[in-house]
């Protein structure tokens, strides 16, 4: 094939290199799977509380675990970007006919594919542990799409800008714990009614992750709640409108 698009070539480059990167292989998926199983076992009794929406706690936990995979997972994309800065390979790419958009998109598409797969592994594990997805395969894909897009416009934007500004993979890795905060401060582990602290409930309401999680949980437990799904996409769109132009502007600044 002659004249393959630079975006596809760079997507393939990133996909090919995932297995060679110990951070991506070792730290992105196994800890989340482990946490999913351990937390699912530890907090399983929560399902017996009145008003809990399911008898299978893994079903309840699965959407949060998917977010736990996609949000820190997208940061690996920024680590890769910072590594390309540090090795000066990015500057090499900038002297080729590949546009800056193709360079960005190439990495983003590869990482999206990776997040889809790793998020899918979490859902498969939930099924293996007796859970069910109310909306079936299509709903699972929609859940993964929401989780991936949300990860991109939140932590993806944050870490990409950090990578552009610092050009240092270690600086990007330093903010990884923030990814978990985004998910912990939601109804990831229990329903909002079960949270005693009023302050924490208020924080949950203010956390955009909560609205994405609610849409995903509906897809997992009950069915298509288009109001919740619409709200999730609105949150993603709003954050994207702020973060993406900022990232593009910063990315252009690599031309000194």
């Amino acid at each position, binding site marked *: *094939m*002659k*004249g*393959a698009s*630079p975006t596809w*070539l760079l997507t393939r*480059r990133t996909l*090919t*290199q995932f297995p*060679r*990167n110990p951070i991506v292989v070792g730290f992105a998926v196994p800890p989340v799977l482990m946490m999913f199983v351990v937390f699912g076992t530890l907090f399983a009794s929560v399902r017996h509380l009145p008003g809990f929406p399911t008898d299978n706690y893994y079903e309840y936990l699965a959407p949060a675990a998917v977010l736990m995979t996609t949000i820190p997972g997208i940061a690996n994309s920024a680590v890769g970007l910072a*590594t*390309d800065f540090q*090795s*000066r*390979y*990015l*500057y*090499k*790419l*900038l*002297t*080729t*006919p*590949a*546009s800056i958009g193709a360079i960005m998109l190439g990495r983003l598409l590869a990482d999206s594919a990776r997040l889809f797969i790793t998020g899918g592994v979490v859902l498969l594990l939930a099924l293996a542990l007796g859970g069910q997805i109310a909306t079936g395969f299509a709903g699972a894909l929609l859940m993964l799409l929401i989780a991936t897009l949300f990860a991109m416009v939140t932590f993806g934007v944050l870490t990409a800008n950090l990578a552009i500004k610092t050009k240092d993979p270690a600086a990007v890795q330093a903010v990884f714990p923030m990814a978990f905060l985004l998910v912990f401060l939601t109804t990831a582990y229990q329903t909002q009614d079960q949270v005693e602290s009023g302050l924490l409930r208020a924080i949950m309401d203010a956390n955009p992750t909560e609205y994405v999680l609610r849409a995903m949980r509906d897809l997992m437990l009950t069915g298509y709640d288009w109001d919740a799904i619409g709200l999730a996409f609105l949150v993603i769109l709003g954050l994207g409108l702020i973060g993406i132009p900022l990232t593009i502007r910063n990315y252009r600044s690599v*031309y*000194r």
Partner: protein
Amino acid sequence: MRQKGGTLDESRLRDLLSSELEPRGAHPRFGGNGTRTSDAIVVEALAKRYANGVEAVRGISFRVETGEVYGILGPNGAGKSTTIGMLGTLVRPTAGRATVAGFDVAAGAKDLRRNIGFAMQEAGVDELATGAEFLVLQGRLYGLSRREAARRARLLLGLVGLDAAANQRIGEYSGGMKRRVDLASALIHLPPVLFLDEPTEGLDPRARVAIWETLQRLNAALQMTVVLTTHYMEEADRLCGRIGIIDRGRIISEGTPAELKASVGGQTLSLRYAHDSGPDALARVRNSLLQRSEVHAVVASDGDLSVDVEDAATVAPELLRFLERKGAAPQALSIKQPTLEDVYLRSTGKSFEEEAVRAHHDTNGRESR
């Protein structure tokens, strides 16, 4: 035959690559092949001022003819990398204009990039890729088919002596190997113009000579236009058809190495004094020497005096006796043929090292403010 602003004659170059880039004809110094048809690079009053206020390049102008090897020689901090960065579209000029292969560096950047290869000061390589994968991807980004990119990758890796390491990850390469694979990647699409930013910086002498030999062999075969920056006099002298000497963002001398050295005139007597000789003492010796008719010029630098004379071997004994009478006999005396360093010293009154230290302090001072 290359065409201005267009692509290379693929069949001719494919033939060359098929014959593994065997040199064609005698080529003592690449660039002087008589095939020059037009200017490959035209730079007019090009300038760059960075956001922090540093004026890295201050309105430089020069032309590079097709097939020529042009060297930008200067100490660290002189503006070499910024200049080549502007020509390679990595740095945006703040004033002036430049065209490369017929394309404007600002308005025609996208087309320009198809016509250049760029090997970075610190090799810009993909450390997770193997050497072969890296070259194939580079080739494909320039529109080569997978098969052609793979074929050229094999040939180029062989040419730069990395065929045995083709399937090894670049992260495992030594510094010299990274430079060589970077150079090969800059050539994968056989660009009409090749930019090399400090191609041997940080390499040991053996690796440096290997890169020089590779470059000479490549240019002999492909006769592409090459612009290289360096602060190594020997490198510029050996590789470049013409040299522009840059100092504090301005080109202060330009010509062939022979022309530049001839401009210094005659020979140089190098007088070495004790480390504790103060600048005042050296200035007194300098003034004494300048009173003598056989002395053309005297430059003090790093505790040494460089004395320009017509025939050093003849005048040296008399000058030594003269200095002894003045109580200013040097610790050591040597006779030097003029070098490019002498050209720089003559033009600026300081050595490369002194200027590099000054530029380093300037930069640090600005950054700390």
